């Protein structure tokens, strides 16, 4: 018996149609069905932040959303925002500040950091640290990440002034 469900969505601007098992989470759909492996899967219960993506503009955990729930939605992954250059300043700052080592947490960190800076352009290091507390990094010790995000926040502020 075919238990799959048809879904249609836009992933990084490209229309996608597939049949999926209802129990397939969005993160596994992106990774295995679409081979967009920049979305990482660490804990599968919402704690580590490695799977963070955007759905209809909102930051979400792709491990806690079913692929069927993304039917009709606009999904953006790290591949998408890298392609558009939306986070290129953050990516460069991460490289310069040594804010990544193994890189496992980096896609989720970049998407979360970008959202923080959009909501609170002048966020100070304490606010940035608080907002990133839902994203685990097992390598860097976080200081370099907070530095990089803070630096970009300042640079973006100077640009718009």
């Amino acid at each position, binding site marked *: 018996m075919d238990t799959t469900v048809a879904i249609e969505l836009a992933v990084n601007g490209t229309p996608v149609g597939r049949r999926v098992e209802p*129990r397939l*989470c969005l993160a596994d759909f992106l990774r295995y069905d679409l081979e967009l492996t920049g979305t990482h899967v660490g804990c599968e219960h919402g704690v580590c932040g490695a799977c*963070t993506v955007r759905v209809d503009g909102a930051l979400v955990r792709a491990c806690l959303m*079913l692929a*069927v729930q993304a039917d009709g939605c606009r999904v953006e992954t790290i591949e998408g925002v890298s392609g558009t250059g939306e986070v290129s300043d953050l990516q460069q700052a991460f490289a310069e500040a040594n804010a990544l080592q193994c890189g496992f947490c980096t896609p989720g960190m970049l998407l979360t950091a970008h959202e923080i800076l959009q909501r609170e352009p002048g966020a100070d290091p304490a606010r940035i640290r608080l*907002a990133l507390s*839902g994203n685990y990094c097992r390598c860097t010790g976080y200081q370099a990440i907070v530095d990089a995000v803070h630096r970009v926040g300042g640079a973006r502020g100077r640009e718009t002034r």
Partner: protein
Amino acid sequence: MKPAPFVYHRPASLPDALALLERYGAEGRVLAGGQSLVPALNMRLATPGALIDINRIPGLDEIRLGAEGLVLGALARLDAVERSPLVAAHAPLIAQALPHVAHLAVRTRSTVGGGIAHADPAAELPACLVALGGTVRALSRRGSREIGAAEFFRGVCTTALGPGEVLTAVVVPRLAPGWRSRFDELARRHGDYALVALAAHARVADGTLAEARLVLAGVGATPVRAARAEAALAGRRMDAAALDAAARALAEELDPPSDVHASAALRRHLAGVLLRRAVRGLLEA
């Protein structure tokens, strides 16, 4: 791990959702934000036969000020509630509590209805709803009813909702003149469930707390109202001796659990710390 297989339904209306719940009985589960249910599915702590996804039912996400008070629809997302000027003005306790719930990418999906229906004993929203004297609106094929927050929470993740019943909204009474709120909690890490949380709501008059409602999370199976500490505060000048007496009354009336996160003694101590902070905050504000 991955979830066990289930059938997925996405009803477009409340009557359709109720019919599906009736059809599946104990095998059916409402899926709202999924931020508690999907982890349980992933870990196979929950293995329902059918998920009834209510996310696309129109009108359930309202945040509205009505004659009865502030109405928060079951599907109002915590991120939207946190940023709502209506909530800031009419339920400041909830506005203060929400930044403590999980993290941004979890709050964008988490719903008011899910947070109340899930009834985690350490959760912030249930404590706020009890402190504010709110009500829960529930709907089933038998009709609708309103349940007072104090009667709604029955045990660990157990509520007054019956089989086939869906939570449609919660209602918080309008903020009465002179009433102020303070929410604070202590957790191991920001965004974790609280070790202890205190939702304090009080009427301030002549530099005293004329009436106080104190509700704690993380210290019992449900939100716990601290009636003796409330009495110890009511109408007193809050000098050091009075604060000590209130903290002592609170420690005596609480019977918190010991678990891997904290001992009962630590939780009792932290409750006193939160009480002192809340009293100071309420009187200063």
